[in-house]
């Protein structure tokens, strides 16, 4: 009978979504577009990240962050959203947890808002359209720090 050891391992690479201790990084997605939220979820879960919650606006995102804290590693934050925009939600999250890791998700043409977000404490940003490589790179650069 063959055991697992008899097979060569074709994929030694550890999924990027795993912490050094083997548990997944926990991500909160804040986005009012069902399409974008789904796209980010697919990219992240395919690399082993755990999407703990998807919030549909900034206020829900902020409240969820407080509720999940400290069991949350990263937030992806859309900018234009109803009820509370991404910049305000970011400011509230940073006020609550100055070490929060928030990545802004922006359409092109929002450079001023992205700059304000970086000044306010966002760790990085991603410009849409999103692709797998771009999203994973930015997350890694933030989580690697």
């Amino acid at each position, binding site marked *: 009978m063959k055991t697992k050891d008899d097979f060569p391992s074709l994929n030694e690479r550890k999924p990027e979504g795993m912490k050094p201790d083997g548990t997944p990084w926990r991500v909160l997605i804040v986005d009012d*577009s*069902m*399409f*974008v939220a*789904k*796209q980010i979820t*697919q990219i992240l879960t395919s690399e082993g990240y755990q999407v703990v919650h998807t919030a549909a606006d900034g206020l829900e995102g902020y409240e969820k962050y407080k509720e999940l804290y400290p069991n949350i590693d990263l937030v992806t934050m859309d900018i*234009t959203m109803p009820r509370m925009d991404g910049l305000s939600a970011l400011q509230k999250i940073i006020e609550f947890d100055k070490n929060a890791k928030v990545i802004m998700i922006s*359409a*092109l*043409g*929002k450079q001023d808002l992205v700059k304000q977000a970086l000044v306010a404490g966002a760790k990085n940003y991603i410009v*849409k*359209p999103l*692709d797998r490589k771009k999203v994973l790179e930015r997350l890694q650069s933030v989580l690697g720090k």
Partner: protein
Amino acid sequence: MRVEYINPFVESAFNVLKEVLQGDIKRGELYLKSTSMPVMGVAALVGLAGDVEGRVLFDMEKASALKIASAMNGEQLTAMDELVKATITELANMITAQAVTKLHELGFRFDLTPPAIFTGDNMEVSDQDVEALIVPMETPQGKIEINVAIRERG
């Protein structure tokens, strides 16, 4: 309407469609309409207000909308559900955002409304006192017409 308003939309539609659909995109001949005109079945509308004012319509057949949303989601979508609408909205968002960046660089200042999606049969759009320029874009998933009616604020 000045043609320089539509070029950024055409360029940006070309770039965004090419990137999200990963296929060959062809630009058709631009044409002008000044009266009311039919809308194909699914239309995403973005309003503009500022130094210039008007609206941009992304118009397509329902079948094309479903194919485009399927391609963008990487799965077969067969009904005009919330996900399809969210996907077409996001497509309109991305194209408009890129075009507006270019128009801002040219010195035009204006704000945008979030896209609204219209679906139905036998729809028409009319614009009072402003002509619409239309550029058809051919994608592997079907045609999208970019219909721009913008004027300078009087």
